[in-house]
């Protein structure tokens, strides 16, 4: 039998043929133990790093172009360089809040290979002279919290974390901390607020990066779990080896969760920049096609916040630049695939409802706008919509994200792509994210909206009062 198959002890993960950087231990049932980790090269990346100057470790990460895997795709090595010199202490906050619809890979990395993440944190702290690391895990992920707790306890007991790590002058503590259910806390400044014991609301920008002013007002690096999980392998194998995988702009691999109407949904480690959406959905090595008897209608290429793609975009590689130019983003590495049985309005409403529920309420266009978007979509779906509702949706959208919203090209209507990212009137990108499902579906499937609209615009006075207005 080929090696590519489901792994019973790691539900959701599919072990495909292809290079593995972050999931190499997943096939081992005991991959989360220190014993297995050490038997498979564990902490050798840290040893390699400690044999270099801290600045050389930073150079390696810069040289390898390790792109952030949390959503924005910013190169880690560059971000690390934004900390103002001499303003100690510096902190590391690890973003394990994973809650973007469709996304999961950080949970698997934390449950299946917690030592790899811990080692990545240590390498970062060493390179940058960080005083303490906070590993922030999503509240709902009890198993991940347990696995990391055990891993940290074992690593401390062996002198791999804490005082004089591996007998050197390098000392740092890692604190496991966890959230309590709020999507917005994944936004890095909200994460810092939460870690300070506050409501998790994003901070005003600038400063654009917490590297300038972060936790307790000190320079702080926030990186995603998967980003840091790449570092042990990178230290052990070097940047040039790292860059033999993937493309020049997007080296290495990425974990991608493909869910929805495919034959073999799963989380796959793929090579960035070379694998296309078509490979991923149809090839035997990955999802093995759209479910029997059905065909692809549309897909969300990068987590709930990404503008939608359609069959015309299938041949794009999974790489930030071409996907951005085509009107969307790879975001958090989550793809939701929908076949022709999917009601576009209903699917859009479900994501919009998520943003309406999760808006932190700090800025008006998002707080009010997402509520209205949900309400109008719901009434259209319920057969209570009016012809002017479509324009109303676009109008609300324009208040949150002015101007043309990023969208895929639609050759059948002669429409060109609007490149990513959207403009925003809000403090953070959550508000604009709520617009993606709306403009994506109205632009492409306006007829589906129109078919659901049964009310006339001439009766709004009655309707308005009966709905209570505000």
């Amino acid at each position, binding site marked *: 039998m080929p090696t590519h198959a489901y792994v019973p002890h790691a539900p959701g993960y599919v072990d495909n043929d292809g290079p593995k950087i972050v999931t190499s231990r997943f096939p081992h049932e005991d991959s989360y133990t220190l014993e297995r980790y050490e038997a498979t090269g564990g902490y050798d990346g840290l040893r390699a790093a400690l044999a270099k100057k801290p600045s050389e470790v930073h150079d390696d990460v810069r040289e390898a172009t390790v792109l952030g895997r949390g959503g924005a795709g910013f190169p880690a090595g560059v971000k690390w360089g934004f900390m103002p010199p*001499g303003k100690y202490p510096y902190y590391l906050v690890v973003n394990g809040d994973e809650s973007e619809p469709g996304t999961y890979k*950080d949970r698997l990395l934390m449950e299946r290979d917690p030592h790899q993440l811990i080692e990545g944190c240590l390498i970062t702290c060493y390179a940058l002279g960080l005083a303490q690391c906070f590993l922030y895990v999503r509240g709902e992920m009890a198993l991940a919290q347990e696995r990391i707790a055990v891993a*940290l306890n074992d690593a401390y007991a062996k002198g791999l974390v804490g*005082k004089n790590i591996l007998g050197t002058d390098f*000392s*740092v503590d890692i604190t496991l901390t966890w959230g309590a259910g709020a999507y917005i806390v994944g936004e890095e400044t909200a994460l810092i607020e939460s870690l300070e014991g506050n409501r998790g609301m994003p901070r005003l920008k600038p400063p654009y990066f917490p590297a300038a002013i972060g936790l307790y*007002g000190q320079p702080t690096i926030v990186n995603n779990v998967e980003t840091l999980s790449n570092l042990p392998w990178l230290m052990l194998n070097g940047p040039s080896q790292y860059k033999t995988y993937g493309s020049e702009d997007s080296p290495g691999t990425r974990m991608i969760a493909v869910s929805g109407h495919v034959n073999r949904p799963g989380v796959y480690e793929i090579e960035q920049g070379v694998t296309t959406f078509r490979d991923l959905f149809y090839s035997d090595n990955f999802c093995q096609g759209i479910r029997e008897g059905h065909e692809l209608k549309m897909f969300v290429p990068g987590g709930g916040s990404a503008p939608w793609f359609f069959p015309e975009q299938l041949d794009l590689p999974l790489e930030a630049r071409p996907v951005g130019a085509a009107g969307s983003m790879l975001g958090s590495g989550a793809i939701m695939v929908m076949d022709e049985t999917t009601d576009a309005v*209903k699917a859009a409403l479900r994501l919009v409802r998520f943003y309406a529920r999760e808006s932190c309420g700090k800025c008006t266009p998002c707080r009010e706008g997402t509520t209205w978007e949900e309400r109008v979509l719901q009434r259209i779906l319920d057969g209570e919509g009016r012809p002017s509702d479509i324009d109303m949706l676009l109008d609300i959208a324009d208040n949150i994200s002015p101007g043309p919203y990023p969208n895929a090209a639609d050759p059948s209507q002669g429409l060109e792509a609007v490149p990513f990212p959207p403009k925003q009137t809000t403090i953070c990108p959550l508000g604009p994210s709520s617009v993606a499902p709306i403009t994506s579906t109205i632009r492409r499937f306006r007829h589906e909206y129109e078919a659901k609209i049964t009310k006339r615009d001439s009766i709004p006075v009655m309707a308005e009062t009966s709905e209570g207005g505000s």
Partner: protein
Amino acid sequence: MSRFSDANLAIADDIISRYPVKKSALIPLLHLAQEQEGYVTDDAMRHIAELTDTTPAEVKGTGSFYEMFKFHPVGAYMVNVCTNLSCQLLGGEELLDHAEKTLGVKAGGTTADGMFTLEDVECIAACTEAPCLQVNYRYKLRISHDEFDEMIADLRAGKAGDIPEHGTLATIRQSIPAGMGAGIVPPEEASEAPVWLARNDSPDGES
């Protein structure tokens, strides 16, 4: 009567010791309070305020922002069914409807015997294993309607397996062995450059 027990007070002190600033321990302490009582009581919030040099209003202000904290009694088992998009595509809403029928409550409700609270939740990061749910934050993946009913029957019969009572998250905690920590201090006491950065200035990288 719902301040921290002595055992939990020791845990609380340990948690607080892992942060440079006490207030950072607020969320973990609220979880600890919820673990003790099944929900967060006013007394617990007063106790947390004392421990973290904050006010009860600040504790409540923070706690009420987060969905997992309950300020009134809920079922011994929180049954959280995901209906976000990936799950919706593969029967998440039907599973929720079925759960409402089996439990006899609407989403958001608690059964009369106090055993179950049903919730309609957002993505729980198991999207390829739809439809799915969590019971007290333990996963049930690709669950059929019959399997759902069996699970409920088992829980009613006291067969909970590895599922703890509501409030308990991780059953294992971090604990830094004495003498092994690097030393967690307030930011103002850590304003010196870490010693190993001196390696950057030495020719051979040693310090």
